[in-house]
């Protein structure tokens, strides 16, 4: 019978199909993660590379030993120093604030796009994605030019007579928030737009017919139905924003604590690779929670 052979071939095909991405993830995600984990448990040293191996062979009384030295002190420092937990808390707070701000900006934009005639929508979508054609770094640099004391924004506000003194925005947390909202806005707009576009307009008419003012109909029908899109957008902004390094480094001030930047400083300025690795592990553990929530929400949305 070739039925069994058929099944085997199918089984092999399936194995390859599932195996390739798993192998990819193992090579480029799991392995680096294990390396970072190992680094975080090794002892810093003034050497090249700046840490000691955790495995060591040695002989004693003619017998061979393998010693494993795991330095847990790094993690204790991480938890007791205060700086790192503060940086983490500050990152979470900034990312959450930026997510809320991005939602407030993105929802009306997405709603406007979804209510446009269908033939206009592709152009609006293109406009949302157009910034991606320029390097992210260049766009953040451009914001420095806009936000600095003698920058475009202050020049405009002074010319309009709205202010007499230039506003100090650059190198503050406000600049970081502006940068994050700006950079991640498309990730908020697109899932919300994709959701709103599918809404049946007669639902709002039905709500109005049943006695709702249009504003109430919006809150009772449009917003609850848009929930999956809103959640997807929030996760897509929040998760990368927590670990953001470039934006706080370029737009933030010395007092803008963010975990990504702390990590960078530990790696390159302090050359404390174990501590930097431990910070990376901590950030990952904290982000696993929203990532799992996001995956679950996506799976639920697909079930609908």
């Amino acid at each position, binding site marked *: 019978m070739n039925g069994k052979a058929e099944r085997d071939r199918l089984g092999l095909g399936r194995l390859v199909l599932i195996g390739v991405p798993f192998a990819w993830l193992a090579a480029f995600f799991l392995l680096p993660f294990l390396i970072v984990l190992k680094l975080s448990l090794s002892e810093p040293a003034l050497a090249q590379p700046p840490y000691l191996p955790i495995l060591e062979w040695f002989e004693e009384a003619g017998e061979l030993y393998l010693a494993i030295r795991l330095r847990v002190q790094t993690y204790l420092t991480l938890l007791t120093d205060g700086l790192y937990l503060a940086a983490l808390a500050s990152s979470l707070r900034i990312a959450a604030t930026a997510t809320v701000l991005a939602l407030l900006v993105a929802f009306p934009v997405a709603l406007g796009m979804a209510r446009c005639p269908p033939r206009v929508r592709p152009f609006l979508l293109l406009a949302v994605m157009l910034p991606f054609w320029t390097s992210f770094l260049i766009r953040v640099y451009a914001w420095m030019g806009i936000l600095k004391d003698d920058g475009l924004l202050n020049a405009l506000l002074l010319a309009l007579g709205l202010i007499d003194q230039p506003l100090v925005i650059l190198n503050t947390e406000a600049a970081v928030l502006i940068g994050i909202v700006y950079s991640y806005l498309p990730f908020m707009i697109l899932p919300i737009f994709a959701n709103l576009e599918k809404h*049946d307009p*007669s*639902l709002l*008419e*039905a*709500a*109005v*017919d*049943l*006695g*709702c*003012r249009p504003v*109430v109909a919006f809150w*009772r*029908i449009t917003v*609850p*139905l848009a929930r999956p899109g809103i959640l997807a957008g929030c996760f897509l902004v929040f998760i990368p924003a927590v670990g953001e390094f470039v934006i706080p480094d370029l737009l933030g001030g010395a007092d803008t604590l963010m975990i990504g930047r702390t990590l960078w400083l530990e790696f390159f300025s302090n050359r404390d690779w174990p501590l930097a690795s431990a910070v990376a592990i901590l950030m990952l553990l904290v982000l696993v929670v929203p990532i799992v929530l996001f995956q679950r929400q996506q799976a639920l949305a697909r079930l609908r």
Partner: protein
Amino acid sequence: MATARPVREARPRIEPWQDPDAVPFVRIQGVTKTFGEVYAVDNVTLDIFRGEFFALLGPSGCGKSTLLRILAGLDRPSSGRVLIDGQDMTDVPPWRRPVNMMFQSYALFPHLSVRRNIAFGLEQERLPRAEIAERVAEMVRLVRLDGLEDRKPDQLSGGQRQRVALARALVKRPKVLLLDEPLGALDKKLRDQTQLELVNIQDRLGLTFVIVTHDQEEAMTVGSRMAIMREGQIAQLGTPSELYEYPASRFVAEFVGEVNLIEARFSSVNGATMRVRAPALGIEIVTDRPIAALPGEPLWVAVRPEKMSIAKTPPAETGHNCVAGDVFDIEYLGDVSVYHVRLDNGLFLRATEANRLRLIERPITWEDRVWLFWGPDASVVLKT
């Protein structure tokens, strides 16, 4: 066509439009709605009485749905006024109108359960919880949705969704219930059954219903009166039997049911008898419903297929209302058969006969020479 519906025939219906003192409940006065250059509704004036089941019938794009949306307040008329129960509704927004609409797509809120869908309108009125629960339960019983209250719309069948939509609109106790093609998504059997249910509910609650449909059979089944619309205007208004028996134009005659239209010229009127010539058929047609016409004016005679008799032998009198031909085709529909008869000049006429006997031995069959004839009361003479 117009099958006898026991619910309708058994009880005598009130006919307020016959009563000169009756005050119309819904008044549409000179309503026009334009979209750009297009007149969707063109100067329509229409009175609907309390307790009527009024049908707006017409082909797609005739403006019937726009007129319904104007009644609901979802579209604003470009000019004209709408009055409901004596109050001018023209500038009243839809959320304050005492009307509710059942949408063609049902427009059920997908994130809310059946119960919450039905309660939605009452929650807007900020009624006490107990009263909302009571009225929702009452509606659930009325439309027979017991046991399905906690389901979401996507867990319901088409017929169940249709009933949720009906309950959701009825629970507000609207002065007028508007139904936009409410049964379009149901299959034929369910549709027939639901039509009867709608009539029963309307009868029981004594509400005023306005239904929009493109299905003339549906309009005739449920409608106390109907308006046939064409290109934004009302082509004819009347009871189903008036429209069927006495259409005012070829458009109405053809839209409501099947009809044979015969081109004719005016000959003479003598008292209650009108004579016209049908040059193409080479016969004279006598009718007992004379209309005013000029000699030689082009006219059309409309004869319903079921009012034409068909026989293999000529009738006693062949001088008028009689024409001979050959059976070209027979449509067997079970209860009736439609005979397509090809006349000697190549024109076709249709005659419908009830199949009272089983057709094992067909009395009339293909290629038979037959005579078609009808009485003076079977035809209507039309000018347009």
